[in-house]
């Protein structure tokens, strides 16, 4: 009886520690800059559990499940998504039950206080099996594009400071997508800060954890100087098999930096 009662009460889901690799397929998350140990860093704010957790971008896959699958409408304004009737995976701008709701915000207290007016959000490349777009619904539903993987890179948009926004994230083909993102801002003290790293997403069928694969090198490198962190399930394959060669390169670089950092720390200690 007591057990039954407990089931009926809303149970606060204790979130996985931010060091774990997690797939988020439902609930609210935001992409946004923070000052992590004083360093401007893009992270994911995970509102799906209690308490709220900020996660390193490297440890998150945002998944558009089968619930996000729709058909391209006949309205010509949407032909950028494909032929009418074609399948497309759309994470909507407005919350939809059972579909992850990713937005972006510049509301972290320190960010809101220190950033001068706006953050520049840039997309430097997309690696995935199909077209990726991010668009907003403006007046009377007309789509207003923010990013489109078919257009030349880098692409950029402005995010006003102390704001929180949602858009429509679309994927033309199922599979894993890596967005090479940066966020840059001028601070009120006149200095400029920037951070660039990949955001992983997965659309439709397939194992969303595949999106972690090419990142293993980077993750391992970053952890080099830290105590062993909790590892998520599904040990990914070696970096060498990565279908994202550019990322393999940057991952190696990050790994190198991580090692160097570890060495310096050791020497100081």
């Amino acid at each position, binding site marked *: 009886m007591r057990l039954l009662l407990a089931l*009926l*009460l*809303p*149970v606060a889901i204790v979130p996985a520690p931010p060091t774990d690799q997690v797939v988020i397929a439902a609930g609210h998350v935001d992409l946004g800059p923070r000052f992590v140990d004083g360093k401007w860093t893009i992270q994911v704010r995970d509102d799906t559990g209690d308490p709220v957790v900020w996660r390193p971008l490297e440890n998150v896959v945002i998944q558009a499940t089968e619930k996000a699958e*729709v058909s*391209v*409408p006949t*309205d010509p*304004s*949407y032909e950028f998504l494909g032929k009418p009737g074609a399948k497309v995976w*759309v994470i*909507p*701008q*407005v*919350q939809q*039950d059972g579909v992850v709701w990713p937005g972006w915000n510049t*509301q972290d*207290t320190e960010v*809101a*206080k220190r950033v*001068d*007016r*706006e953050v*520049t959000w840039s997309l430097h490349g997309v690696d995935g099996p199909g077209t990726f777009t991010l668009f*907003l*619904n*403006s*007046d*009377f*539903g*007309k*789509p*207003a594009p923010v990013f489109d993987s078919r257009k030349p890179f880098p692409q*950029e*948009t*402005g995010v*006003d400071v*102390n*704001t*929180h*926004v*949602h*858009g*429509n994230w679309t994927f033309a083909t199922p599979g894993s997508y890596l967005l090479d993102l940066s966020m840059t801002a001028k601070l009120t003290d*006149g200095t400029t800060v920037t951070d660039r790293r990949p955001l992983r997403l997965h659309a439709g069928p397939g194992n969303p954890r595949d999106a972690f694969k090419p990142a293993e090198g980077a993750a391992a490198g970053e952890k080099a100087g830290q105590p062993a962190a909790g590892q998520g399930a599904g040990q990914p394959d070696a970096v060498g098999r990565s279908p994202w060669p550019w990322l393999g390169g940057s991952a190696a670089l990050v790994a190198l930096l991580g090692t160097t950092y570890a060495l310096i720390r050791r020497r100081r200690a």
Partner: protein
Amino acid sequence: MRRGRRVTAAAVAFVVLAASGCAGTSAGAGGKLNVVATTEILADLAQRVGGDRVTASSLVPAGGDPHSYEPTPADAKRVAKSDVTFTNHLLLEPQALIKTIDANAPKGTPNVSLAEAAESYGAHVIPLVEDIGLDVLWLGLRVRGTGKARGATRTSSVQLTATKVDGPGKLIAYLTESLGQPDVYFGGPADSTTLPPAAHTHLNWAFTKPGVYHLTLEGKLDVGEGKPLQPLGRGTFTFAVGVEPHKVRPADGGTATVLDDGHTDLTVDLDTGQVYAYSDAQRPGEAQSAVPAARVVIDVPGKALETVPDDPRFAFLGKAGAQIHQLPQAVLGKHVHGEIDPHLWEDVANAKAYVQLIRDTLISVDPDGSSTYRVNADAYLRELDELDSYVRSQLTKIPADRRQLITTHDAFGYLASAYGMKVAGFVVPNPAQEPSVDQVRKLSETIRNLKVPAVFTEPNLAQRASVLTQVARDNGVRVCSIYGDSFDEHARTYVAMMRHNADELLLCLGEKK
């Protein structure tokens, strides 16, 4: 890059001054520093700081409009002879004017764009609003709390019903989905919607006629399993559509909290059962606020006027081409990425930042004049402090429900922000543009609905004034005049123009009819 230029300028300045000291060959008359600015306002500030050591002049002639000014070959020559050049910022001056300066300013002399550089002197900068229709309250629906005490679970839902709606026209709350399909929540065929606990959604709030509307929202908890719905609470929100919100009484008849900016959700609280407006903090660090429904007046201003599209899916809003007021479901795209409103001086505190930047620039070119520039700037800054107090005290006298500014162009955002006024409308954002039929129609509607006591033309924008004057005459509204970007024969200094603006605004808006 600007900083780099200034450092070089300081080094080169030594050479320039050494030359002028020996032979008097400096460009300026009588060995004075020759300062060229784009506008008379900037030249005035520079002259006040420079005093006897400086000759400051403006490229845009007296009474000219900087937005549409076309530089002449003579201007290029003047720039070439300058020791220092001051511009404001692109979007005030046209590109051709900026280019004339950049191309002709002698190498190594400071060429300072005041608006941006003044930020490091404490200037307050406003991002440029691109779509004025998005510069309104962002209004959604929300369910807060867990409802544990009422037996709510994660699978429970909350039914929100518009139990009563009244107003001169229809109130329609709807959501346009990702692929353009509208979904009506309230006011159309459906008057009820369901949200899960801890959810929120953004909606379009459309009103088919201007006036005052009341919306009574009631929340009921559905714990499922066929159990009856549990009533939570209800509350009545008030909307001021196209009309001055401070003249509108909230549902409880008391003093209203007017919501006209930022992000607010009409909220049902699962724990307390209350219905209230839940607003994001306006500034970082401030608390979110909850105002009971009966105290709230939501401003749906003239800026929110929209034309119903020629699309059968939106026929529930009215005939194609009909004018409605609408708070949009998303307000992103309101600002132009990277651009700022260039009219900083309409806030006296910003003019003070300009003065300090001008002082330091002049010192970098003419270090011998350092003490003179400091003394002049200090005296002028004190005068500007007095001016700021004067403008503030004059505008404070205008009653809260009469602070709407309607002008020829969008030059008064800083004045509004600094001194508690509100920009209700303008003929065109930038006077270099022609107003469209739609813009003129929107302006007429705004003036008619708001019943403003007066509208304001600018002396240098006679052409744009004809549109505003006509609309005002049609509506029996007084036409007054304030200074935006330029002086005229009556106001020859920045201080005089700001004093005039304060006096004129009080005279034209402050008196009861």
